[in-house]
């Protein structure tokens, strides 16, 4: 029998049992859709992180104190920074102070990160900062602040809630009590979509000196942002900083972050894909079941086929084709539904947790899902098809 005729015959067979066929397809579809959407979301996270890393350049290195975070005991000092600055292949090393404060902007109160930087050095490291209005802070500014895009215009607002020139009030709690300061808005930044070390969209920048004064930091700083002179020297610089500052300091390069995120998303993909694959296996078992019933119901037809000269192989291929059609169609529909499902999941994540997930469908994902669905179909069809192929024709013809 010709391949095309086998396929057409198989198609005719599934058409006769539309409802059952549809159920099998839905089974595969659910599995395929789950795999597609989950893979696409983790792929999206990976892509987003990589893109941000790309934006920063692969030569950026962050030095943070080990242990627990900025507000904790871990501090670096200006002396540490000077030591880092002397390491060969370090082009820029710049201090950063970053602490939360209660801020009143345009009549609204919220807790925001206040970041103190040395502007000209900082901008050399964090390259995607652009001013939308006004100017960036200057080294000597003691009462000027620059607002990230989301601070000036919180998500969901149609208009900025503050203008260049207006004032913001900052309140912090210290051991001595409450401390207040007022800054004039010198500039508002364009949206950057986030960055390594600090997300410029969600912070208020002031000068390092102003920050030292506000938070009473003395010689202490929270981080050092470092720029190596070339990609091939990043690893050397990272190791040199670790040697110089000793244990308890966390040195992270963009490449390291990308690698780590890549590892995490890959593990997530395997985990989530594996869970979703279980549903595909369940669908496969459903196919085994319904096809076995189909073969029994069609025993007589199989007998007829054999009486008119069909070989075991012809019968086997007819039933395997049915299984393949089920898997293939389920896979294709699964990918399409998965693309849709990915959008739904990311919308839900955005609405309920304010997490931005942008599913990224790659041809590899589509191809893999369709391939696996088809394989599931064929594997599931193997046993029933084998049974059909090996039916004794005389008994099959006698079957009522």
């Amino acid at each position, binding site marked *: 029998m010709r391949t095309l005729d086998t396929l057409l015959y198989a198609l005719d067979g599934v058409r006769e049992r539309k409802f059952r066929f549809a159920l099998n397809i839905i089974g595969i579809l659910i599995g395929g859709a789950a795999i597609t959407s989950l893979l696409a979301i983790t792929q999206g996270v990976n892509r987003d992180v990589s893109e941000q890393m790309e934006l920063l350049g692969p030569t950026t290195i962050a030095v943070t104190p080990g242990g627990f975070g900025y507000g904790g005991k871990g501090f670096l000092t200006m002396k540490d920074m000077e030591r880092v600055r002397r390491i060969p292949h370090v082009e820029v090393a710049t201090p950063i102070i970053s602490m939360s404060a209660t801020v009143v902007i345009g009549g609204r109160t919220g807790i925001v990160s206040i970041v103190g930087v040395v502007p000209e050095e900082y901008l050399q490291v964090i390259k995607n900062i652009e001013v939308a209005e006004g100017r960036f802070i200057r080294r000597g500014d003691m009462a000027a602040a620059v607002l990230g895009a989301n601070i000036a215009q919180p998500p969901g607002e149609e208009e900025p809630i503050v203008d260049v020139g207006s004032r913001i009030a900052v309140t912090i709690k210290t051991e001595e009590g409450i401390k207040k300061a007022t800054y004039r808005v010198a500039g508002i930044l364009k949206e950057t979509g986030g960055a390594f070390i600090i997300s410029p969209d969600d912070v208020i920048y002031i000068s390092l000196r102003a920050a030292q004064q506000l938070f009473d930091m003395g010689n202490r700083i929270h981080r050092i942002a470092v720029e190596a002179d070339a990609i091939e020297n990043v690893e050397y610089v990272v190791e040199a900083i670790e040697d110089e500052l000793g244990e308890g300091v966390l040195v992270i390069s963009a490449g390291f972050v990308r690698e780590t995120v890549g590892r995490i998303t890959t593990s997530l993909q395997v985990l989530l894909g594996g869970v979703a694959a279980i549903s595909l296996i369940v669908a496969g078992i459903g196919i085994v079941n319904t096809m076995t019933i189909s073969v029994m119901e069609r025993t007589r037809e199989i007998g007829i086929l054999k009486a*008119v*000269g*069909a*070989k*075991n*192989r*012809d019968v086997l291929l007819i039933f395997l084709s049915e299984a393949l059609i089920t898997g293939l169609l389920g896979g294709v529909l699964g990918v399409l539904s998965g693309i849709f499902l990915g959008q739904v999941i990311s919308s839900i994540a955005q609405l309920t947790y304010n997490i931005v997930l942008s599913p990224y469908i790659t041809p590899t994902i589509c191809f893999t899902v369709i391939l696996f669905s088809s394989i599931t179909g064929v594997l599931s069809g193997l046993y029933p098809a084998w049974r059909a192929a090996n039916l004794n*024709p005389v008994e099959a013809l006698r079957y009522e």
Partner: protein
Amino acid sequence: MTEIIRAEGLVKEYIQGGRPVRALDGVDLAVEEGEFLAIMGPSGSGKSTLLHILGALDRPTEGRILIRGVDLSRLSDVELAELRNREIGFVFQFFNLIPRMDALSNVELPLAIAGIPREERRRRAIELLKLVGLGDRMTHRPSELSGGEQQRVAIARALANDPSIILCDEPTGNLDSKTGEEVIGLMKELNLKSGKTFIIVTHDPAVAQMTERILYLHDGRIVGEKRREMP
């Protein structure tokens, strides 16, 4: 005339309810090309078993069959399937058409299995359905056809690959006597016109009356033979 089928010492045993049953018990048989032969016998006499073995659907436990001198016991399952496809046509009591397919597609089935291209298949099926008098019912499904019409479709299907042997298992068993006579008449006509060999298993004496030779089967043995000169 040349001998087309030869069976020697055919024995067929199978297990039923845990006991061996001998359906055929040493059948010797020779059929000439172009014969129109009936096999008669009570139910359980082994008629259908014999027909299945002659048609290469089943293998005998002992003995051998030669079709045009070729020993079927030497053929593989694949070769037997090819033989069924090209050399043998079956007509059954319950027609055994595929219900979801129209008359044309049913007739095309053996041609499709033989790997004949679509257009040629269609042309041949139309030709055959016209030959059996169903030129105007070609796109009807079996459920839309009368018993006699269904059996005609089955005959057209049996003829599809122009086989030399047509094996019929109670072909009139499910038809009223008038329709049955018409169907046998059609077979006789095909036999005379194209020289195809017909072996008809039946217990209907009226059918047997139309054949040249009747073999009587009882308990798996041939117990008698009647030859008649046909007009």
